[in-house]
């Protein structure tokens, strides 16, 4: 199947040069050396080709052969992706473990999708139907609740000449035949797609439905839309991974693609061990049944880390094409950028900023552009939302990856070291973060909750920025110097910070807040503020407000009131009325 196309002339880490450029194409997949390690042609010049190798090159020799495959780096798509865990070039890690034990050895070759497993397939087309690329030919249940819609390869079209009767088929069994011009083509449930090429769609739709994550600081304050892109930069230990895990657990997406790109082995193990036991509130099924994991941890080969992002996004697009909402998490895009830098450095390319290649921005743009809410080729609608973690050196946001990322995302969740040190989690700084989807998703909130979320949200933000101004003064002269009305602002913002913004990902009740709970909490805090302000303006000393028992009740509500008992907020509101009412009566002059 593969012929020798070249001879290795130079080896440095994951980068290999070879003679024989005439016989390969740019971005072609090749097999390198006697062990036939997987690699990709990343440069052609004169007689020389440059190859990045997806496996460890120690022990490889000059003079060894390179074999061509004629194909670009591609992923396999079909039923069986869900619940899988792959490395950066879609090798199934459980099979590698079965074959090689606990450590990853070189030269592992396995099908990404099982050839043995059978799926119950039902055709949705009949002989004589004209079908275009992307058309849904039939369906197979991939899990108890997930319908896998088997689609024609986007590049194909023609007339159906045969369909398989309903029954159990493997991914390589024929399920239809198609007349394309003069040729007849056999279609199976399996297709390949080159990872570096975005899968086509008909057109983009406006992104105006929020991706609900159950995280109050995100949904209520800095929402991302389905089909949108968000960046979450932060220094080490500030909460990028915990936030992305929380989104992977609770987001109202139908499919989650989680890419561990150059991060820790234990974090992937955590997901693997936890997700099968967590229940998706929407389907009642284990969370793992909507999840695909790509794990190319920091100690795995760096070139495969570079590929992992593309492997993940292509799988995400594939489910989008079926008409699903997909959320993709990439932790961390900085490690991906470093992989680019490492390979570029070995090629002795001219560096731009901080050693990164000049094409860094272009690659980031291409990646984030693959997010979107779209009309698919087959008429369904689907979305890919991207949440990319960024790990700036020294936590300094002025570095190139953070800066370029900012250009291509519309939602910026800025993690803050000092909040994390004070154990204010999620440590997302409300003054440095932004969302450009606010106006877009306002209508959805109104329809869904009947409430004016945006006005309330903006009011809370106003109070928070007021707080920041006031705390400058407090730092200089102490709180006593402030008038009671301003101290009332500080009372309320403490409630916002501790009661709303802080959310403990590890606590069962608090980990996920429904939209209804979020809006009720927001409403309650603002109500507290309006009532308190009225009383303070009548001259009541602030400590009377501070000492009201209801303050503690509000702060604790996030973990005492479950998503199912929203009406208990009415009781808390009554407590506010009662306790404030008393004060009000005392200070009626």
């Amino acid at each position, binding site marked *: 199947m593969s012929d020798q196309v070249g001879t290795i002339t130079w080896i440095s880490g994951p980068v290999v040069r070879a003679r024989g450029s005439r016989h390969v194409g740019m971005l072609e997949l090749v097999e390198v050396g006697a062990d036939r390690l997987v690699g990709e042609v990343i440069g052609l010049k004169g007689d020389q080709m440059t190859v990045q190798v997806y496996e460890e090159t120690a022990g490889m020799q000059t003079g060894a052969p390179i074999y061509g495959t004629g194909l670009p780096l591609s992923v396999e798509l079909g039923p069986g992706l869900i619940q899988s865990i792959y490395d950066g070039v879609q090798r199934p890690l459980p099979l590698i473990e079965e074959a090689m034990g606990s*450590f990853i050895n070189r030269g592992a070759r396995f099908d990404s999708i099982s050839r043995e497993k059978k799926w119950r397939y039902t055709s949705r087309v009949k002989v004589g139907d004209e079908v275009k690329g992307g058309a849904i030919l039939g369906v197979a249940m991939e899990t108890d609740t997930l319908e896998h819609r088997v689609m024609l390869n986007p590049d194909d079209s023609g007339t159906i000449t045969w369909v398989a009767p309903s029954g159990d088929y493997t991914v390589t069994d024929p399920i239809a035949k198609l007349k394309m011009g003069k040729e007849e083509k056999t279609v199976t449930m399996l297709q390949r797609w080159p990872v570096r090429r975005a899968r086509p769609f008909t057109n983009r739709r406006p992104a105006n439905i929020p991706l609900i994550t159950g995280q109050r600081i995100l949904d209520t304050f800095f929402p991302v839309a389905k089909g949108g892109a968000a960046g979450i930069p932060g220094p080490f230990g500030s909460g990028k991974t915990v936030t992305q895990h929380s989104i992977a657990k609770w987001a109202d997406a139908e499919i989650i693609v989680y890419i561990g790109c150059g991060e820790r082995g234990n974090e992937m193990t955590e997901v693997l061990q936890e997700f099968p036991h967590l229940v998706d509130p929407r389907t009642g099924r284990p969370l793992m049944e909507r999840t695909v994991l790509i794990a190319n941890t920091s100690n795995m080969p760096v070139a495969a880390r570079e590929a992992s992002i593309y492997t993940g996004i292509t799988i995400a697009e594939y489910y989008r094409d079926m008409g699903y909402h997909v959320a993709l998490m990439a932790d961390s895009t900085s490690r991906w950028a470093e992989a680019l830098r490492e390979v570029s450095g070995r090629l002795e390319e001219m560096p731009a900023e901080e050693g990164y290649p000049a094409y860094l921005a272009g690659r980031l743009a291409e990646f984030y552009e693959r997010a979107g809410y779209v009309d698919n080729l087959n008429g369904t609608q689907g979305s890919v939302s991207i949440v990319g973690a960024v790990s700036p050196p020294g936590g300094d946001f002025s570095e190139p990856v953070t800066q370029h990322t900012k250009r291509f995302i519309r939602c910026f969740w800025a993690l803050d070291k000092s909040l994390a040190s004070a154990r204010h989690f999620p440590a997302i700084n409300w003054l440095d973060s932004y969302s450009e989807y606010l106006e877009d998703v306002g209508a959805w909130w109104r329809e869904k909750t009947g409430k004016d979320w945006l006005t309330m949200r903006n009011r809370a933000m106003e109070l928070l920025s007021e707080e920041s101004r006031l705390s400058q003064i407090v730092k200089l002269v102490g709180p006593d110097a402030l008038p009671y009305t301003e101290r009332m602002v500080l009372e309320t913002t403490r409630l916002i910070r501790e009661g709303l913004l802080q959310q403990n990902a590890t606590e069962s009740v608090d980990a996920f807040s429904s939209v209804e709970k979020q809006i009720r909490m927001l409403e309650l805090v603002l109500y507290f503020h309006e009532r308190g302000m009225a009383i303070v303006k009548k001259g009541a000393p602030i400590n009377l407000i501070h000492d009201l028992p209801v303050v503690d009740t509000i702060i604790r509500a996030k973990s005492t009131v479950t998503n199912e008992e929203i009406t208990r907020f009415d009781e808390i509101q009554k407590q506010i009325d009662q306790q404030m009412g008393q004060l009000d009566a005392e200070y009626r002059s």
Partner: protein
Amino acid sequence: MSEVTVQGGQEVVGVGRIEGPILVVEGGANVSYDEVVEIQDSRGQIRRGRVLEVGEGFAVVQAFAGSTGLSIDGTRVRFLGTTLHIPVAEEMLGRIFDGLGSPIDGGPEPLTDRYADVNGQPINPTARIYPRDYIQTGISTIDGVNTLLRGQKLPLFSGAGMPHDQLAAQIVRQATLGKLAGAPPTEGEEFAIVFAAMGVKNDVADYFRRSFTESGALTRVAMFLNLADDPPVERIVTPRAALTLAEYLAYEREMHVLVVLTDMTNYGEALRQISNVRGEVPSRKGYPGYLYSDLASMYERTGRIRTSKGSITQIPILTMPNDDITHPMPDLTGYITEGQIVLGRELNFAGIYPPVAVLPSLSRLMKDGIGKNRTRDDHPRWGAQLYAAYARTQDVRALASVIGEEELSDVDQKYLKFGRAFEREFVNQSFTENRTIERTLEIGWKLLSMLPKKELTRVTLDEIAIYYKGDDASN
């Protein structure tokens, strides 16, 4: 100029170029990437090295012992056809090795036919067991608020002149498998210890050796020493050699292994030096762009796997240049490890031992090893509350320095007192004090009881009812 003979490994006589520890060897055929070489100088002395880059008819070789004394014509380089391996055996415990794994204690080479590649191989994430068993170190700032688990990598970020060596020695001496609070003490399963020194002074290595001897641990310790006056390039191998033995002990002999690596900052400098000599494009502060991946290839050799009962726990020590936590070494380490214990200059000045700066310290795995059925139910919230209160103390101190302590509100005054007591009673403990987890929890509650109940929003009302000992009678 060079002449090639093949005989028990290919040999090339004469080198093309020598620059710092890097030799360019011309004329070898079929050299493999990362292969080990033996370099013989004109007097017949042999040193080892390895291949960093191969091209047609040339190889770039790094000499571990540097190039002093090597000449262009008189140097012979023999390619050994394999990557760097060291012997591994249980009997290596109790022994002392140099930075490349050869014995320097006068004893014989370990008797074994098991040799392992110092580079190791990545653990398959599906083969890992997520760490859940905590290690009781007897130190409140660790057990209480930065709990260490078996299979975790938790570095000490320190600075010149701070007692990181003492703290590491105390951890090693006191570490036992954690138990439920209040459970009777049992004979702790003992850790095997693999200690690697990179570029530290002889007295540091001596200090550890003495400390291991005094605690009777010496027979359970393997030491790999590359000291300050040893060749810097060898430092690239030292931690890898140590981890290779640790992996053997943990995953094949089913032992619980504690690995102490000191000082990783010196390791980083050696890596930077080689990178600079090779003219690589630097990223920050002259460090190579692959520093993160390079460090990860060692730190990730920590953990537990499903096929063995054993574990590897890593405690790398780093002195931060200028106490700067954003310096590439601590920064990239923090991005890979599962938290960090940071030592603070001010606490150290104030005579607090161990001077653990609690706020920037963190154990990410703590949440999975504490609480109900592991330490005590209230532990996670108690820890969060201590953190929150101590963080508040910092704000109050800043305010007090502006308006004066007398002007502070009653509550803020209480925070000030809490902060002082926290540092003196919770953080501070003696080098020989081994606190149980219940003692640590008890001290914490005593301190929290200095604050009004209303301030304690991170713990539950039930917990306040049980553990709060203060004079605030409200509820």
